[in-house]
């Protein structure tokens, strides 16, 4: 098994007086495509927030290469972990190209116009949309641009919350290919999703239920 750059041990998290996550352990391995599913309110998004250090677990700890997340500098974390949330993380009054170049520059990995154009082509954003404001994009086009931002970050861990949201069948196929290309290059990908077609391509599938993770890969293999 490849190394696990991101590890969570004994994670518990409470919303008010109700525990949503209970004593949860998780290793995110390099080169692995890991999917987590679960019903609404199961705590998937909260788990992602804890894993990227945006939210504090009630109990337990998360470590990046064995260093507790609380001790990792924010800018270093931004270079190592790329996050795609429900909202695509884009400025709506900038174009797709401008967004990509801005965020790449902010983390110290600037892109030339040609590089940025090539990335937007790779995620399947139509050429004519590159110079249009994101406000005028469809939800699927915003998601593709968000995905281009993740690729441009060159982070070695991707945390994706419902990455297929708004994507048409072609877009889902592109997403699936891009995720596999990333894991082949050694990136650790953890995605939260309900998309069964996408989950079917996972190396590992965990189901979050009653605050605990259940390994569905072994169950499916046994069946």
């Amino acid at each position, binding site marked *: 098994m490849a190394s696990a750059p991101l590890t969570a041990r004994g994670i518990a998290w409470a919303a008010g007086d109700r525990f949503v996550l209970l004593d949860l352990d998780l290793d995110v391995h390099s080169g692995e495509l890991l999917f987590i599913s679960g019903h609404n309110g199961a705590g998937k998004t909260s788990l992602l927030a804890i894993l990227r250090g945006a939210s504090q677990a009630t109990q337990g700890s998360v470590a990046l290469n064995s260093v507790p997340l609380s001790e990792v500098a*924010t800018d270093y974390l*931004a270079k190592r972990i790329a*996050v795609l949330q429900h909202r*695509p993380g*884009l400025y*709506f009054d900038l174009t797709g190209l401008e967004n990509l170049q801005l965020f790449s520059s902010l983390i110290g990995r600037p892109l030339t116009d040609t590089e940025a154009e090539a990335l937007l082509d790779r995620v399947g954003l139509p050429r004519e949309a590159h110079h249009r404001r*994101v406000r005028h994009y469809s939800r699927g086009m915003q998601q593709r641009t968000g995905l281009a931002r993740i690729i441009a970050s060159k982070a070695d861990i991707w945390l994706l919350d419902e990455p297929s949201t708004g994507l048409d069948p072609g877009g889902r196929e592109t997403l699936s290919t891009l995720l596999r290309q990333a894991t082949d290059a050694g990136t650790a990908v953890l995605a939260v999703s309900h998309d069964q077609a996408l989950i079917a391509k996972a190396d590992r599938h965990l189901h979050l239920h009653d605050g605990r993770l259940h390994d569905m890969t072994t169950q499916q293999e046994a069946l």
Partner: protein
Amino acid sequence: MTALRLTWLLLKKDLRIAARSREMLGFTLLFAVLCVLVFAFGFLQEGTAAEGYVPGVLWVTLLFSSSVSLLRLFAAEEEGGTLELVSATSAGTVPLFVSKVLVQLLFTGLVTVVVLPMVLLFFNAELRGIGPIAASLLLGLIGQATVGTLCSALLVHVRLREVLLPLVLYPTVAPLLIGGVKVTALALAGAEGTRDWLTLMLVFDLLFVVASPWLHGRALAR
């Protein structure tokens, strides 16, 4: 990448967004003009001296209109969910804070350029003591932009922030308001004594210019 370069990148982005959406400057200017008109209708009576109202009307208008742009200062980050992304730079949250202060300063500066002649015209006042008035406006706008940006950032995820922002901002910048009104009144009357009030405003600005980026960073900390 240096903090200065990061600040420039974020400032350029904000100015580009402001130029495209136009809503922030447009609404702020409109509100400021309406404010002056309302004060003019409320205070002006035939046969009474109006010049005495100038300092109060000018500073209250600037304070009220600044809160209009402050409420929209982080709107682009909220809409696209980018606050976390632009906060995680190699220079921490300081470039984000400084770029927002500069944007706010630019907007309130433009509003001042429109409002000052309007107030002088409506209240039939002659601009005397331009030096102290310009200094007080500069210090007042810097202080308001710094404290305002801090309050706006602290309240960015708070429900009812439209109500809370003035409740937090106005008492905090009261020393600036008092100082600005006093300096303007003394300067228009051709009187001495503006130096003490300008010193008060300078001390206020120094305190908040130093402390605010740190407080902002603490507020956005993981």
